[in-house]
């Protein structure tokens, strides 16, 4: 039974894991890059060791250094969080070789689910429905794929065999545009995963992204903790998640839940994992992929079930049986999570960096904030722009939405721009309130344009306030702002959002 856990991650998830360890009486070891000397996970951990320079490949991706630190500090377990080394079977295997408990599934399970084609084949065998596509995958040539494509039918998706989420993914509307898209998808997959293999999948239109949380112990017990609705996405990045899904009823929940359990059993899964499904408007569901790690959005499940998923991960890794049977898992109320990203929703969501000069966290009943930043902390361009997760619970979905509105209004982050106004606009959207959305909703039916609409009185007040601030700032700095400073804004920006899919 391990006693000291090294957390091979940073940011909010490192803090989250430290919290669970502390509540279970486990010692914690943080690792950090040069950019993160003052980060919250370093401040909160019992021990902290420098990994290297800021870029991930020189710090948080350095498996060798992390294992050295584990040995040096006497850490006998490693929690990988999400991203970075979380789904690297070789890392999990190395931990095992060194006698360090990897808090996650077996390397073979990671491998089986990591290759998307193999994962498809495996779950098909277990009787799990998958999106129609190229079943027999190995190293298919462009010619093969172009030949099979019309049989699957357009629109379809090119997906990287080794990939997760958006990387190497292309949407194809016709055979004509397919060769070019194949080429760029392969190039992207090659550079991201060192593997240019791709496969094809039918594009399910009007689909919802709904995933099931699984926990499994090493004694053969596997249960699910219900679903999360993750259809609010932008460029394949989730922005908001909720539990339960307003689209599911108890019958479908039960059916999908048992299929999810089957999928996990098919790869002899242990610890926490997530089965992602696409659900079409007729409530047909298809296995998409399995994330063999803790998920960003795990808190919404915690809020409605009362289960502390990270604590449960630690218990499972210590060889304990699950604390719950499937029957003991009860769902209570409704939870919503908004991902707060350092990006400007009024300027095409370009990332924003800088020092947080002022911050107020929303608190009070039913509100939880998981964050790794604080006033004075500098947001650097090296890592993911997600700086906080705002999670609320309400007795009903309507109450949760009202509470989220209140919490978003309270939240102040000054120094970097955030997507909070995006979430505020979303909370006011009638389609969102009505639960009427699919994965294309944000990109195709949602706009920030009306977000700052106001009547003349409101506009006047905003103008007075801004003028008073400008006057004060001018007085304070006595510094003349150059008139040409804004010219970059004349440039048209298109952001390709390709961070890790969660």
């Amino acid at each position, binding site marked *: 039974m391990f006693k000291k856990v090294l957390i091979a991650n940073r940011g909010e998830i490192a803090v989250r894991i430290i919290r669970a360890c502390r509540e279970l009486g486990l010692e914690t070891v943080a690792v950090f890059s040069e950019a993160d000397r003052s980060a919250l996970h370093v401040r909160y951990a019992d021990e902290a060791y420098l990994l290297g320079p800021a870029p991930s490949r020189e710090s948080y991706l350095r498996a060798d250094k992390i294992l050295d630190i584990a040995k040096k500090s006497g850490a006998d377990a490693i929690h990988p969080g999400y991203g970075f080394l979380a789904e690297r079977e070789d890392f999990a295997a190395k931990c095992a070789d060194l006698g360090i408990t990897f808090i996650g599934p077996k390397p073979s399970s990671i491998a089986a689910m990591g290759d998307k084609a193999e994962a498809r084949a495996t779950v098909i065998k277990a009787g799990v429905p998958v999106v129609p596509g190229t079943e027999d995958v190995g190293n298919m040539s462009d010619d093969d794929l172009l030949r099979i494509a019309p049989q699957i039918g357009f629109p379809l998706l090119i997906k990287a065999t080794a990939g997760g989420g958006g990387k190497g993914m292309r949407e194809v509307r016709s055979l004509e545009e397919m060769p070019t898209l194949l080429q760029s998808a392969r190039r992207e997959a090659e550079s991201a995963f060192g593997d240019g293999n791709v496969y094809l999948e039918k594009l399910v239109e009007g689909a919802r992204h709904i995933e099931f949380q699984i926990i499994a112990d090493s004694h053969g017990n596997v249960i699910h903790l219900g679903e999360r609705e993750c259809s609010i996405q932008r460029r394949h990045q989730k922005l908001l998640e909720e539990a339960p899904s307003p689209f599911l009823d108890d019958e479908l929940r039960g059916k999908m839940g048992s299929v999810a359990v089957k999928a996990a059993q098919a790869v002899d899964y242990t610890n926490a994992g997530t089965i992602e499904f696409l659900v079409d408007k007729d409530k047909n569901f298809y296995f998409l992929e399995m994330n063999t790690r803790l998920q960003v959005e795990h808190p919404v499940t915690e809020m409605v079930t009362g289960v502390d998923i990270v604590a449960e991960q630690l218990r499972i890794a210590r060889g304990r049986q699950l604390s719950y049977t499937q029957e003991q898992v009860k769902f209570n109320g409704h939870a919503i999570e908004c991902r707060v990203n*350092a*990006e400007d929703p*009024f300027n095409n969501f*370009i*990332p*924003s*960096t*800088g020092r947080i*000069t*002022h911050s107020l966290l929303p608190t009070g009943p039913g509100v939880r904030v998981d964050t790794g930043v604080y006033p004075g902390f500098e947001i650097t*361009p*090296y*890592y*993911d*722009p997600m700086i906080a997760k705002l999670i609320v619970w309400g007795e009903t979905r309507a109450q949760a939405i009202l509470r989220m509105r209140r919490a978003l*209004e309270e939240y*102040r982050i*000054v*120094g970097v*721009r955030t997507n*909070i*106004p995006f979430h*505020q606009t979303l909370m006011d959207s009638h389609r969102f309130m009505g639960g009427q959305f699919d994965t294309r909703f944000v990109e195709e039916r949602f706009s920030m344009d009306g*977000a*700052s609409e*106001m009547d003349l009185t*409101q*506009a*006047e*007040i*905003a*103008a*007075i*306030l*801004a*003028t*008073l*601030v*400008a*006057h*004060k*700032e*001018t007085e304070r700095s006595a510094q003349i*702002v150059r*008139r040409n*400073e*804004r*010219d*970059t804004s*004349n*440039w*048209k*920006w*298109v*952001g*390709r*959002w*390709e*961070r*890790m899919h969660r």
Partner: protein
Amino acid sequence: MKYVATIDDKDFSIEIVDDRHVRVGERLIAVDFESVSGQPVYSLIFDGKSFESFVYQGRRRLAGASARAAVPVKVEDEREKRLRAAAGGGVAEGGEFHLKAPMPGLVVAIPVSEGQEVKKGQVLVILESMKMQNELKAPRDGVVHHIKAKAGESVEQKQVLLNLQ
């Protein structure tokens, strides 16, 4: 001191009379305005209503944030505004453009070369920041004049990456 504040192309002429009064058009209005905790956060109580505002990193675009929503507001002093109007409303169409990095990042690729003709919308630079790749595109047709950065280079915010003529 007289200012012009602009929201969505609507202009408001606002004069700061003293610490407790502003004049909007003809009306003299009493305001209770204070900085919060010595930070760039400001509280305004105006006709009983409570509002808050903050400045984004010394840029000219301000957010007059009420409790309910963030609103971008541009504020210029009157003289500044007149000068800019005289200059024809900004950078001339045919002038040289300086493509600046809008955030610190890593230059992933510059898929154009000096002297190359480019079309409006063509990608000039791919910049990686926060694990995302951002394509910077040409806002109009032109010729790449001078490339000042190269792939693999880390650049600062506002650093000029290339010029377009």
